């Protein structure tokens, strides 16, 4: 009886608890459900560098803030004609937006040839310092500190004995009494120097590892020891210090700044953090995930605090640009919408778009999930299955970056939204690329970038790469000099590229098509003298194993071909997909030397960063806006070193128009002569642009299918299997694959 009573009592308690948990909270049920949003947070903006009269490219070397104004120190290199001299400028942008630009004459005189790690630092009293290092007559690195105590009119070099203890100066700060903290990232030390540069003492982090960066202001010197996960702040007046624990992320390149009251600002790729003096916690002011700080190509060069207001403005530069983080009391501190973005692998355009989107939509928090980042341990299939589980449960991400995902299947299963209306509102995108993704009047996925398989074709072979039979014909008719070099094309690599570029004939599993493909591949293999080995004829590759050569050629097959073609060992060059003008440097140089044309491979292109919107996503309006941002100039422009051509028309035009005389590459040819390549000339860039306009066939590769086919085609080319065997095996394999 007692047992029954207890059981009933227990059941009643559980039921009551469960029901109570389901009941709305008192304040919610009263109708006042809105939790007051805490307003105000730091908002990022980029300060446009005032252009110089001749439009020369400037490098930011320092900043100075005063009463709401910011001065940005820049330098330009005058080039070979001027003996590679430097000129220095100061742009002052007033609180009212007025801009004045003046030359820094003291630097022009004292550092005409510059050096490494050049940085201008302004002390609180307005004294200017420039630190850098160069090599002396004995080829030893020597650190220099220049100082101007009259606002930049004149200057002098300090010659204190402390400088000889530093091989370079990568972090620098000035204390209130004029003494300096100077440290070297390379040697991991931070020295306290007097106003003349004499050594006072070495500041240490005890046994917490080398010091990677430091800063100083007022009475305080801050230093960071990444290995020890600590930021130490010395009070030079009381001779005491405090340690603030900070967990540095992997490959962190932090920069520090110290406020006059001893508060420390730490900037790295995860964000901007502030630690109050005597405080216990780091406050995150800016999130690296949604700001430029988190972009892979951003490394903070220096940090400057403008302490004029209660919420100081923060300025950060990365040599090329200056970012301002200003407190905006009108924006919400916490976003009320969340947009989720998924990709299998990291995508730089997405990161750029997240930053740009966060600037204009502070109400949206973007969560970007990269399934296969460095820490992941699963296979691609594991992550696709995991994503599919979410899609089936209708809890999947709003935005899908579809590279590596089964796009056709997603379209067929009605997972993706038709983007036609979204694309109508985007900035102009490359029309032929967009049109290639039209399906029955709808567009379910578009690339944010693309790369282009290209070939360097000698006179008479311009159409050789249009199809496999044409390529086989051209290879057989090439004469004494083979069409392509067997230095780069072994049985394996030839199979790889032929399947990649011409394998669409195999996709339907038709036996005749398979047989024709194999026959043509064999003709090419025979005509160019393929063997199982790579690297024949290029001695410089002698130290590399065949596995290493295969790895190289499967990703970058151009180089050995260029070497052999320039050495008249092959007529044409079949490149891997090229994604930027920069990537085309060696190819255009070779084409120029060979007096050859650059052609596409049958009008094909490899789409990248394919974006689609999950139909079951919760934030469809925000998702559409994000797609527009992804395709905008803000997300795609300004990066001449991107790995993909942008689809945004303006960004693409800019990339094709960009000329950079400061970049070159070189290598040794097989005969010992040197091959050097400059930035592609305007005519070549225009040719590439014209070629891009003709592309109309997206090359969507299925890695699993390609691997299977490559093994079989290779086995046929090397004679392991007969034509009948290879055709049968490929047919059987494709039959299983296609019927799934």
């Amino acid at each position, binding site marked *: 009886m007692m047992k029954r009573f207890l059981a009933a009592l227990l059941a009643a308690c559980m039921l009551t608890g469960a029901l109570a948990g389901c009941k709305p909270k008192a304040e919610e049920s009263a109708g006042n459900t809105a939790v007051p949003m805490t307003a105000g947070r730091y908002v990022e903006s980029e300060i446009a560098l005032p252009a110089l009269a001749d439009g020369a490219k400037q490098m930011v070397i320092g900043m100075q803030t005063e009463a709401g104004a910011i001065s940005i120190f820049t330098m330009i290199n005058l080039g070979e004609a001027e003996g590679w001299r430097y000129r220095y400028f100061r742009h002052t942008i007033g609180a009212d937006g007025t801009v004045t630009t003046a030359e820094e004459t003291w630097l022009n005189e004292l550092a005409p040839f510059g050096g490494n790690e050049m940085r201008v630092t302004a002390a609180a009293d307005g004294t200017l310092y420039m630190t850098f290092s160069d090599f002396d007559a004995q080829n030893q690195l020597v650190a220099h500190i220049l100082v101007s105590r009259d606002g930049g009119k004149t200057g002098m070099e300090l010659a204190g004995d402390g400088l000889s203890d530093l091989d370079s100066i990568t972090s620098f700060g000035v204390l209130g009494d004029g003494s300096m903290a100077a440290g070297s990232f390379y040697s991991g030390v931070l020295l306290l120097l007097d106003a003349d540069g004499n050594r006072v003492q070495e500041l240490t982090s005890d046994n917490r590892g080398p010091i990677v960066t430091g800063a100083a202001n007022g009475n305080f010197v801050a230093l960071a020891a990444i290995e020890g996960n600590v930021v130490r702040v010395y009070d030079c007046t009381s001779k005491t210090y405090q340690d603030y624990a900070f967990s540095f992320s992997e490959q962190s390149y932090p920069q520090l700044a110290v406020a006059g009251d001893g508060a420390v600002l730490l900037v790295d790729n995860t964000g901007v953090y502030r630690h109050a003096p005597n405080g216990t916690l780091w406050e995150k002011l800016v999130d690296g995930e949604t700001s430029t700080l988190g972009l892979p190509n951003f490394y903070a060069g220096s940090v400057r605090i403008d302490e004029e207001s209660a919420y100081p403005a923060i300025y950060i530069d990365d040599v090329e640009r200056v970012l301002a983080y200003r407190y905006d009391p009108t924006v919400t501190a916490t976003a009320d919408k969340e947009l989720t973005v998924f990709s299998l692998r990291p995508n730089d355009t997405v990161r750029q778009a997240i930053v740009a989107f966060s600037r204009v939509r502070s109400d949206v928090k973007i969560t970007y999930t990269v399934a296969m980042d460095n820490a992941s341990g699963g296979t691609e299939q594991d992550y696709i299955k995991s994503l599919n589980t979410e899609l*089936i449960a209708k809890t999947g991400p709003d935005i899908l970056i579809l590279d590596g995902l089964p796009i056709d299947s997603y379209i*067929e299963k009605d997972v993706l939204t038709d983007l036609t209306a979204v694309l109508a509102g985007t900035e102009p995108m490359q029309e032929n690329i967009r049109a290639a993704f039209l399906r029955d009047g709808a567009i379910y996925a578009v690339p944010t970038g693309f790369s282009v398989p290209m070939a360097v074709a000698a006179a008479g072979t311009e159409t050789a790469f249009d199809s496999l039979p044409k390529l086989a014909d051209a290879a057989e008719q090439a004469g004494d000099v083979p069409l392509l070099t067997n230095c780069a094309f072994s049985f394996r690599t030839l199979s790889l590229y032929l399947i990649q570029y011409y394998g669409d004939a195999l996709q339907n599993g038709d036996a005749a098509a398979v047989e024709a493909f194999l026959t043509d591949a064999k003709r090419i293999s025979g005509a160019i003298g393929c063997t199982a080995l790579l690297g024949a004829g290029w001695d410089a590759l002698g130290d590399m194993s065949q596995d290493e050569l295969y790895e190289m050629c499967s990703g970058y097959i151009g180089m050995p071909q260029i070497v052999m073609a320039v050495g008249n060992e092959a007529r044409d060059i079949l490149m891997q997909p090229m994604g930027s003008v920069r990537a085309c440097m060696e190819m255009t140089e070779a084409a120029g030397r060979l007096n050859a044309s650059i052609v596409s491979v049958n009008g094909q292109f490899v789409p990248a960063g394919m974006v689609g919107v999950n139909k079951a996503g919760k934030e469809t309006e925000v998702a559409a806006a994000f797609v527009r941002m992804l395709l905008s100039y803000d997300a795609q422009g300004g990066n001449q070193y991107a790995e993909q051509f942008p689809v945004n028309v303006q960004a693409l035009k800019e990339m094709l128009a960009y000329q950079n005389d400061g970049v070159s590459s070189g290598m040794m040819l097989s005969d010992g002569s040197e091959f050097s390549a400059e930035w592609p000339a305007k005519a070549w860039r225009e040719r590439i642009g014209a070629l891009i306009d003709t592309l109309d066939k997206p090359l969507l590769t299925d890695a699993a299918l390609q691997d299977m086919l490559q093994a079989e085609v290779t086995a046929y080319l090397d004679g392991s299997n007969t034509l009948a065997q290879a055709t049968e095996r490929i047919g059987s394999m494709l039959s299983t694959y296609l019927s799934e």
Partner: protein
Amino acid sequence: MFLVPTADVVRRSFFSAMGNSFVGFDNYQTVLANRSFRLALSNTGRFLVVCIPLLLALSLAVALLLYRQRRLQDLLRTTYLMPLVVPVTSVVLIIQTVFQKNGLLSALCAAFGKAPVDWLNSEYAFYVLVICYLWKNLGYNVVLWLAGLSAIPASLYEAARMDGATGRQRFRYITLPQLRPTLFMTAVLALINSFKVFREAYLVAGQYPHTSIYMLQHVLSNWFTNLDMQKISAAAVLIMAAILVIVAVVQRVSGGKEGLE
């Protein structure tokens, strides 16, 4: 706990991939007409038909040999289950070392003047998988049979011996009938374990192995990657039904239920 997901799978088998529209038996028709599914089904069936009787017979034979050898039993006790605790990756490594084209077996063949064979990418792949399965599960099934043999009262053998029964007769009329409940359990566990061999097949040869070892799990896994939930659900229902039928047949043959009772 499993009824709800099972019911959901059954429900999904009648809907489109994303569960948006009712399609009746279309998914079943699609699956049954699918060449990949039929290939996988026949390979899996062939694997079961070859492996399970072979495993049961071999393990029973070993168990009978060991049953009277107490010392040997004690000595080998720890080794019975050893293959089960070897990590799959290690097993895969061993398989590849032995059976790949440039592996140990090909080297052995070469020593006898034979050309190297890519065992894992030819018809032989099926037998490699069979060997792998037998190696892994033999010891475990021996333990099950030994447990079954121990449960047979010794008085039955003594009585038969007094009646002049030969060893073969004692096996035929005492051991085998008494092992029928054990047969049921052993057969069902062998069936379940046979599905686990997919891990080895997948790790050795990937998503698309040689057609002789393209199993049901391959097709289901690939369908899942392609978000073909409707096909997976229909196939799962069909497989579930098939397994229930097999278990019922085994139960009837072995008298397993009454034995277990």
